[in-house]
């Protein structure tokens, strides 16, 4: 099967994720969109590993997964903490870090 389908799928997933991050306000949704983008990247890595017949891309994908797992833990903890203090999960409400 041609790798192009996989690459096109990955690109579509990435775009959906990116648009989601940019347009959605709910931080949980934004977070899920970030995961979507990460997994689009993973899909690309695995696809190229398959086409070139090497395992470099697969190893990289594992690293991405491990980092993503850690990031989920920290990200959710931050979201929880912000929700507790501000009673809101909207990313636009957490805007204190500005000039």
């Amino acid at each position, binding site marked *: 099967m041609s790798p192009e389908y996989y690459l096109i799928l990955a690109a579509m997933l990435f775009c959906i994720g*990116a648009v989601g*991050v*940019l*347009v959605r*306000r709910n931080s949980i949704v*934004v977070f899920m969109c970030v995961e979507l983008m990460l997994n689009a990247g993973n899909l690309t890595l695995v696809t190229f590993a398959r086409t070139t017949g090497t395992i470099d891309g697969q190893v990289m994908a594992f690293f991405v997964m491990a980092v993503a797992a850690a990031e989920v833990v920290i990200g959710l903890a931050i979201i929880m903490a912000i929700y507790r203090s501000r009673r809101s999960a909207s*990313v*636009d409400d*957490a*805007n*204190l*870090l*500005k*000039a």
Partner: protein
Amino acid sequence: MDTITYAPASGLLAWTWALIALPALGAAILLLAGRRADKWGHWLGVGTIGAAFALAVGLFASLSGLDNKSAHLDLFTLIAIGDLQIDASLLFDPLSAVFCLLITGVGLLIHIYAVGYMAEDAGRRKFFAYFNLFAAAMLVLVLGGNYFMTFVGWEAVGLASYLLIAFWQLKPAAATAGKKAFLTNRVADVGFLLAMFTMLGALGTVDFAGVFNGAESLSTSTSLALGLLLLAAACGKSGQWPFQTWLPDAMEGPTPVSALIHAATMVTAGVYLIARSHIIFSLNPNVQTAVVAVGALTLLFGAIVGCAKDDIKRVLAWSTVSQIGYMFLAVGLGGGAFALGILHLLAHGFFKAGLFLGSGSVMHAMNDQTDIRRFGGLWRVMPWTYATFLAGWVAIIGLFPFSGYFTKDPIIAAAFAREGWQGWVTGGAALLGAALTAFYMTRLFVLTFHGPKRWTEDVHPHESPAIMTGPLVLLGLGSLGAGALMVSPVTEWLTPVFGEHAEPHGHLSHMQVTVITTAVVVLGAALAWFLFRGGTDEVPRAAAWPVRAARADLGGEAVNRGVFERPGRLAANASVAIDARGVDGVVNGLSAAVGGTSRRLLALQTGFVRSYALSILSGAVIVVAALMVVVIQ
């Protein structure tokens, strides 16, 4: 010329270092022990200088038993770089011996006097610590076996002089005078340093023996430079023209300091330096002429200004400037006159120390007033001070048979013996100086002790305690007798250093000079007596231009102000302006630019996460697009 060698020290002479160590130890103990030493500190100071005097007498006796009349002592190596080696070496020869006796002997008397003079002062222990420090430094200066050691002592006496002039440092005038003395000396010390560099460059050594033996091989220009540089250094330390202005201001210090440092010992260091380097100075007639010119000019300068001053200590200070001018004149004339210069230095040490201590005694009686216009009639209340001051007065003006007669007249005769028109000029200057000396000293003496009482109402004069009059009496006796006793033994004693010289024959015979000098001295003294026996005005009267000029120190301060202070201020103001506008401008401009830019960039920080995400995304898109363009091409 014979090669100069110095024999190594043996026996008691190997203890020469202890001469320096004793007062240095005293100073160290007094400074380190702090307040605990307040009760007995001054006696320790007197004790160490007394022990040093006893040792100096012993060393003197041992030296007179030696054939070669010199003792050289290498203590340790100070500097060793490549071929250059400078040792901490000491040289005890007839010249340093007489200086050691003067410093420790007169120093001992002044130390004893100071016990009484400083009795009321809270800082007496510190005073004696500095006094001992000065004695140690001065002994290093005269005992040093090479120019470097002399320079170490030279700088150390400058430090001690600064500390003691500014001893009452809470008084602004004293603090300023201390700084002025220190800075003026520093300027002149550059001459000493450059002279040492010249020696190292031309001869590769600063040892006395090495320099003197190699001196003949120097080119004329090198010996000229060396002589003039040493002369500049000597002028600074000895308050000679053009560096004379610091010495009268140094009178802000306690009176014993003025007596010991600024009359008897430290200010004669310049004469010592020239006498010690007599081989260098004898090489080049131009250098000798320069020394003679400085001496003749300064002796007149000091005497003229001395006539116009109303402060008892300042008159004596200008008198010191003038008398050291005589010594410079003598050592500049060279030949047999070197010994005359040293002789006058010794006699001056006695009578000027006595006069200064006498003035201290008068100030003690008059509530620390120094204005001679407010004295008068003191001879009745202060008989001892009066008698000793009288001795100093007859000694300094040079009446027969007191010491000035035996030491100053030969210098005047030697000045007349200089060849050609220079003999008439220098001799005439020396003669005029003698007349002026008689005038201002008589004026000082008469206004202080005779005539009507012009005291302010709150003073009740009284004689000083025995601890102060005792040294005064000894110094007074020295002033009376020293000249007659010393004149031939000292000249003979110094022969190994300066060599044998026949008495010069010049324009006038010695007898004629003596008669003329005595005549002008009596004339000057009589004129002053006639003018001032009835007292003087308590405020200065408007006077003709010579008096006004003399009151203004003959423009010495104006020259300093115009040549050094004003350009110095301009330079300082200019660098302040450059710093404020230029350097600060660049620094401040840079920081303003960075600050402004960052304030503008701050607008991008909106606080909205999604806008950040958008900028990251667009950045990533741009990077990827750029990569694709590059890769595809």
